[in-house]
């Protein structure tokens, strides 16, 4: 059974770098790994996606090792407004079924 695993919660302080790792046990060969951010009472919001190695945009970086069995979302210098739940999303198996992680609740403290 395909599943993704990520920490349930993390705590950080303003200005720190936060790394959230997701493991993928049955990721589809040719699909991207995607990360979303969700605030209370809102739908998830796309942050970043990648296929392998490293991807960086204005919000975050995404590190994916060669075996693609995991991915790490890196948030540089977090602020209070980064307090949210972060989900990894992959497609698994030959039928490319969408698999969402359970989410990591990040709390950024002043």
């Amino acid at each position, binding site marked *: 059974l395909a599943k993704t695993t990520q920490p349930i919660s993390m705590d950080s302080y303003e200005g720190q770098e936060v790394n959230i790792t997701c493991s993928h046990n049955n990721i589809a060969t040719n*699909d991207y790994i995607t990360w979303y951010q969700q605030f209370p*009472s809102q*739908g*998830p919001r796309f942050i970043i*996606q990648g296929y392998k190695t490293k991807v960086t945009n204005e919000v975050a970086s995404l590190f994916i090792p060669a075996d693609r069995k995991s991915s790490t979302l890196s948030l540089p210098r977090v602020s209070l407004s980064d307090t949210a739940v972060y989900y990894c999303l992959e497609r698994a198996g030959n039928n490319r079924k*969408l698999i969402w992680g359970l989410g990591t609740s990040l709390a950024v403290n002043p």
Partner: protein
Amino acid sequence: EAGVAQSPRYKIIEKRQSVAFWCNPISGHATLYWYQQILGQGPKLLIQFQNNGVVDDSQLPKDRFSAERLKGVDSTLKIQPAKLEDSAVYLCASSLEDRNEQYFGPGTRLTVT
């Protein structure tokens, strides 16, 4: 660019009643998704449409849930009859094609009493 629209935003019904949710995706997006998100959990895909055809409905409880996407644009999700465990946020999302970069609406919070 207008985002994904959903209505209603909130709905309270009694068990065994019926309810319907509406979604209007981003213009030009061929793929539409309905998710159920129970408090404290990640989104669970209920059904995925590509234009007006169903791609994946393997987790849709078909004895009580139904969905349609007429003309490949708007979509409705219906629950009949509702159960207490259907209390959740129902999220609609769309994407250009069948890809992971999806755009979500604000969701409909359903409470079944």
